[in-house]
């Protein structure tokens, strides 16, 4: 098809061709712009054509102005539980979706155990291994109620949560498994006292303590009915044999996933583009049966046309996992086209329990806004 735009000698205009709709791209360019074609060997057209003047020679404005975006953008929630959410975002670009995903994983704050003060550990689990395991236990508390604790701050009730773990396996009793429900919340702060090296210190001086709680955390209205506990009570922390004991205090502070993965509020968050399966020609009878049996997730269905003839249809394109079984073999690539829609993202967020997943996404968007604002203030 001689669709060369703007050839001078014949004053040929692409709009004169009969099958090109006015003001839009020709179908093959629209396919290239909006779909990733997943061929047998590799996908093509994976980059998103963002440049506003990409189709300027054809007179088409590729910029997505804010009003167009506002009109076309849609969100549809597919599944919403206490711990995970699956929703569709339609009309957004991969750059922004990826920013949300990165913020969800690495830049949303949570509370996690950072300092472990071990008074007694005669178990076979080493101190540092025990502390590492305690750090990974998710804590069911809203991190927005707390502040960050930096090096020069004193730990007080606004930036620290104190837990205590004291388990003992008596001689003669069977082995016990220490699970995360053994962590008890101390709303009044640390009970341990710092050791002072000064041998000549007067006994009347007050002993130094580790945290300076002005008031009990129990008085905060959010914690009155919901004590702060680990989200899952059955996480195995250690195992004790007879005669072994663990006595420690754990201080939890606020942090973000970038510093250490224990502060990441999501088990994981991911997205995929909506799959689109297109039958390029009519597939009938035996071929249709073969196609239906090839797909491991049952994307295809057979419909009866009457008189014993059957035809294959695409019933569940969303379930396609891109295994490419349907285009394996001779000639199948001419019959089935696997594509992905570039601006339709199926987002899944699995929360570890600190915050509900829909709140997590809202907070992630807020953080992106804050970053932009910071760049703007720095530029002004």
């Amino acid at each position, binding site marked *: 098809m001689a669709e060369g735009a703007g050839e001078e000698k014949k004053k040929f205009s692409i709009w004169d061709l009969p099958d090109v709709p006015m003001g839009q791209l020709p179908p093959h360019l629209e396919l290239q712009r909006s779909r990733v074609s997943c061929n047998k060997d590799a996908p093509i057209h994976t980059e998103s054509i*963002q*440049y*506003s*003047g990409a189709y300027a020679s054809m007179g088409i*404005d590729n*910029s*997505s*102005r*804010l009003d167009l*975006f*506002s009109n076309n*953008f*849609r*969100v*549809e*929630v597919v599944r*919403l539980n206490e711990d995970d959410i699956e*929703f569709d*975002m339609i009309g*957004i*670009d991969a*750059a*922004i979706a*990826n*920013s949300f995903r*990165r*913020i969800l994983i*690495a*830049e949303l*704050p949570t509370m996690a155990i950072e300092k472990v003060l071990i008074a007694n550990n005669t178990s076979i689990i080493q101190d540092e291994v025990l502390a590492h395991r305690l750090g990974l236990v998710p804590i069911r508390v809203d991190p*927005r109620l707390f*502040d*960050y604790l*930096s*090096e*020069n*701050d004193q730990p007080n009730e*606004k*930036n620290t949560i104190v837990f205590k773990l004291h388990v003992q396996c008596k001689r003669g009793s069977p082995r016990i498994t220490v699970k995360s429900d053994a962590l008890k919340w101390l709303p009044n702060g640390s009970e341990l006292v710092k050791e002072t090296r000064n041998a000549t210190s007067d006994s009347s001086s007050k002993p130094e303590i580790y945290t300076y709680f002005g008031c009990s955390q129990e008085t905060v209205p959010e914690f009155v009915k919901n004590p702060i506990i680990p989200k899952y009570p059955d996480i195995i922390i250690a195992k004790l044999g007879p005669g072994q004991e663990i006595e420690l205090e754990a201080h939890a502070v606020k942090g973000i996933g970038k510093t250490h993965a224990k502060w990441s509020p999501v088990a994981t968050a991911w997205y995929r583009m909506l799959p689109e399966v297109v039958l390029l020609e009519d597939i009938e009878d035996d071929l249709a049966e073969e196609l239906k049996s090839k797909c491991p997730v049952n994307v295809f269905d057979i419909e009866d046309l009457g008189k014993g003839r059957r035809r294959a249809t695409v019933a569940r394109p969303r379930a396609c996992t891109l295994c490419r079984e349907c285009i394996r073999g001779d000639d199948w690539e001419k019959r089935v086209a696997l594509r992905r829609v570039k601006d339709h993202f199926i987002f899944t967020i699995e929360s570890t329990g600190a915050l509900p997943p*829909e709140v997590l*996404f*809202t907070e992630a*968007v*807020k*953080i*992106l*806004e*804050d*970053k*932009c*604002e*910071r*760049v*703007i*203030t*720095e*530029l*002004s």
Partner: protein
Amino acid sequence: GRYNLIFYLKICFPNDYWIQFHPFNSFVSWFGDLEIGLKETMEHGSFTDNSAATFSLTDEDHTIANAIRFTLNQDQMVTFCGYSIPHPSEARVNIRVQTTGDPAREVLKDACQNLMLMCRHVRCTFDKAVEDFKASNAVKAMKIDSQDSSGDDSEESE
């Protein structure tokens, strides 16, 4: 010929990293004994032609840079834009903007504004969608309850 002078415009904004990022955090005082992290945004450009410049942002990475690059591309005054990360161990991003005449800094600011507006719209739409979903689920749960309590007879008759 034209003499292009390269100048460094250093904007030092001493600030605490955490406070700036999380303004809903209202307990920390601004002028406490906090370690002050230096944040610099450098603009490398020329005195005579301010339509092309490279902005070097510290403490940033692909998260914001790719999103800004997307909104910059959508702007019709931009002829070229891109970003690079000079070294992965250093949290610094260089964003290059070349425009059709407008000052590059204004164009970058507009792009950030657009990104903020897009984020706000995303947030509103998402909140509304979650509310609608929860409401429709609540309605479905009520329907199932009422069907269970009075549904045995009607099911048998069908």
